[in-house]
């Protein structure tokens, strides 16, 4: 792995530019009242990491409990609260906002040549909503927790548990609005703030992916919001919309809930796919194979994603013909993901590939997402779903897509744009090691769960028949490795803030507009409104630029 594309400025003379978005103002208030999308992204990054490690600690507790067949580490009630809070925190406070709120926030204006998102105040508001929701979730946990599962299934959540359903619901409701505002902001920004020459088909695929995800955020999230409001009203006032004893239909709640929560998984994965499109192109020095196919497959996922929700309910007594339709549509939504995988693979073809950390995470993503996606087909096929649903197979599938897919993409993106965000490089060797550790740990943790699920081990069990123990021990052991893999980046990335090599404008020699300006960027990104005069991922254009720059070293393009 000697060949790299990293081109750093001369470390003895290079300095971080004095004027940048980090140095512009100091003091806590200048952060808490900022309208700068980049600062808000950093705020998100910090708070997200906090929630990720809380959710991760809860996951650790789950795995520890499952080390033995008996419920001996904690009482079943505690276990139920732990997995519920793990789900709530990881989904609503980490996965949904993860890539969009950090990388998307930071990069979309930079990539489309805008000075900021269209609505900076709304952007800040959505961070505050996120924090308010998150605080409420933590408060819920501190004051007794909630044990409904993250799906809030009625009538369990409305009539049968006496834990903090209301505060959790409120937390999710608030976080939902945070996500609506983020999505809305992105859509407006992408429509209205593109710089001259930035046509739709010159947008980086990262932006396309975020556009698709934003549509889902804006259209799907309000539905879960109203479902949660109705649950809260049913719990407090005793209205009967979902109450079977009053003639209400608990399945209606499931429909409303999954109408959001299925698109939500695309909200989570699409931005990750956007990251992968960027990294794979940069590290193979090639335009993404079939740009339009990849762009439209994002949109196709968003559109089809709305019409597959009932595949979560195949065995719940919905009509057999509804099952047929939803199963068919699920097959259709699998195709765009397959298209993406093959297009990324063929992006490598005749490239000039290097293996920096973001690329390693990218390979991790492709492998794990392929497995996650294919096992999703097992669950979308109505016949096999009967056997596999509600078992550890679902758990494994979901984690392969979300942790193996989304989190790998998140880490790929964080490493890839770290130089842009901070102006400094992360240490390469140890981060490559961390990527490998994560990959190995991940497979150890979650692959056994596919077998467990096929054998029939139900999910959300605090205790289980002893014959499942061996695989559970494997899984717990893997989780330990995985934990190390996640802790390492925190350590070395923090280290790099001070000691990392100076990155310069474009350490990866990437083509995006964000790489043509200084690192870290100025508060308003561009001193002169850029004009996009080439296609996305045009490496020849970049070479010509570099040649021109060498010819006249005095004239710099942007900062």
């Amino acid at each position, binding site marked *: 792995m000697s060949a790299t594309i990293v081109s750093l400025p001369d470390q003895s003379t290079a300095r971080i530019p004095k004027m940048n978005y980090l140095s512009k103002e100091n003091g806590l208030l200048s952060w808490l009242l900022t309208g700068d999308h980049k600062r808000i992204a950093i705020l998100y990054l910090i708070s997200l990491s906090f929630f990720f490690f809380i959710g991760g600690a809860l996951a650790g507790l789950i795995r520890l409990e499952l080390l033995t067949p008996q419920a001996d580490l904690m009482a079943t009630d505690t276990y139920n609260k732990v997995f519920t809070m793990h789900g709530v925190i990881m989904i609503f406070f980490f996965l949904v906002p993860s890539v969009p709120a950090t990388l998307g926030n930071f990069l979309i204006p930079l990539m489309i040549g805008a000075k900021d998102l269209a609505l900076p105040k709304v952007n800040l508001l959505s961070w505050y909503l996120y924090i308010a929701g998150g605080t409420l979730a933590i408060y819920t946990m501190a004051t007794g927790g909630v044990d409904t599962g993250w799906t809030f299934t009625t009538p369990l959540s409305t009539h049968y548990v006496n834990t903090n359903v209301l505060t959790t619901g409120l937390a999710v409701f608030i976080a939902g609005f945070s996500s609506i505002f983020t999505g*809305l902001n992105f859509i*407006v920004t992408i429509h209205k703030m593109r710089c001259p020459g930035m046509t739709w088909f010159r947008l980086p695929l990262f932006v396309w992916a975020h556009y698709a995800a934003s549509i889902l955020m804006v259209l799907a999230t309000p539905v879960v919001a109203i479902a949660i409001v109705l649950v809260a009203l049913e719990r407090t006032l005793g209205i009967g919309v979902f109450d079977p004893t009053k003639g209400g239909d608990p399945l209606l709640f499931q429909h409303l809930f999954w109408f959001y929560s299925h698109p939500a998984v695309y909200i989570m994965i699409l931005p990750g796919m956007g990251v992968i499109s960027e990294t794979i192109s940069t590290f193979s020095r090639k335009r993404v194979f079939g740009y339009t196919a990849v762009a439209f497959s994002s949109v196709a996922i968003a559109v089809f994603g709305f019409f597959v929700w009932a595949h979560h309910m195949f065995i719940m007594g919905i009509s057999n013909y509804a099952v047929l339709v939803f199963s068919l549509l699920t097959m259709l939504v699998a195709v765009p993901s397959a298209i993406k995988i093959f297009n990324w693979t063929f992006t490598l073809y005749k490239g000039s590939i290097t293996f920096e950390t973001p690329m390693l995470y990218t390979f991790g993503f492709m492998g794990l997402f392929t497995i996650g996606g294919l096992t999703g087909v097992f669950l979308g096929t109505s016949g096999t779903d009967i056997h596999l649903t509600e078992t550890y197979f679902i758990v494994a599938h979901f984690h392969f897509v979300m942790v193996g897919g989304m989190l790998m993409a998140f880490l790929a993106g964080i490493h890839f744009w770290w130089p842009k965000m901070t102006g400094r490089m992360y240490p390469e060797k140890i981060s490559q090691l961390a990527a490998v550790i994560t990959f190995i740990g991940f497979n150890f943790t979650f692959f056994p769960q596919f077998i467990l699920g096929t054998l029939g081990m139900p999910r959300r069990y605090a205790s289980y028949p002893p014959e499942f123990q061996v695989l559970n021990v494997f899984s717990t052991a893997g989780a330990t490795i995985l934990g190390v893999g996640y802790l390492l980046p925190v350590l070395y990335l923090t280290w790099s803030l001070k000691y990392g090599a100076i990155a310069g404008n474009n350490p990866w020699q990437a083509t995006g507009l964000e790489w043509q300006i200084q690192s870290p960027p100025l508060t308003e990104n561009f001193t002169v409104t850029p004009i996009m005069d080439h296609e996305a991922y045009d490496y020849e254009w970049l070479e010509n630029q570099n040649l021109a720059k060498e010819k006249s070293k005095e004239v710099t393009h942007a900062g």
Partner: protein
Amino acid sequence: MPDSPVIVHGASEADHHEHPAYLRHHFESVEQQADAAGFAMWLFLVTEVMFFGGMFTAYLIYRNWYYPAFVAASHQLDVRWGTLNTLVLIISSFTMAMGVWCAETRRKKGLVLCLMLTMILGLGFLGIKSIEYSEKIEKHHVPGFHYSLQSFTDPQSDSAVYAEYHDKPLPLDMARHTEIYFSLYFALTGMHALHMIIGIAILGFMIFRAQAGAYTSGHVTFVENFGLYWHFVDVIWIYLFALLYLISRHQ
């Protein structure tokens, strides 16, 4: 937008240059700013449609299942109050539209007056709604522990409604499902009222700002977008009026 004038910033960001005070720095032009804000408002309204859409879906399903209960229960709503409220809201939409026009034509006094009228009408709507709610509370038609079926199993006990509709008594099992109707009635109108309250709060803020002349110096985006919101809330009400009050009047 290739023809929009490019504002060239100086090398130092502190540099100031010619543009109206309300044009925020990250926009190229006033049109772009207004465009973006308007588009955002429309998108927000789309999310609102989805928000109410969940409840409308529930309403349609249950109405289909429990048709007699929904008919009998909707007879409990007083269509006169509903009509009056619809009128109040439509007039308030008109005053709001006038307000937007006043802002666009820079008539400060007119704007303040229109906004005040809109606010008063909004409050009037809530007042009428609270009269209707208190009627429901008196008759124990609020879903929950004290819900009473008497008006449905024995319609003649409810003489005012009986005089108008001559409803037949519902069998007990069907009568029970009126509770679903009222669940949805309170959820829908309650959410609508919440939107009204938020709107009125914003109106208060706007009146305050309008008096200072904030919206009559050319920058009308906020007033326009609030107008969109207010009209949207109005439209939602018209659907509610049709679905909750009118649709079963002649059954």
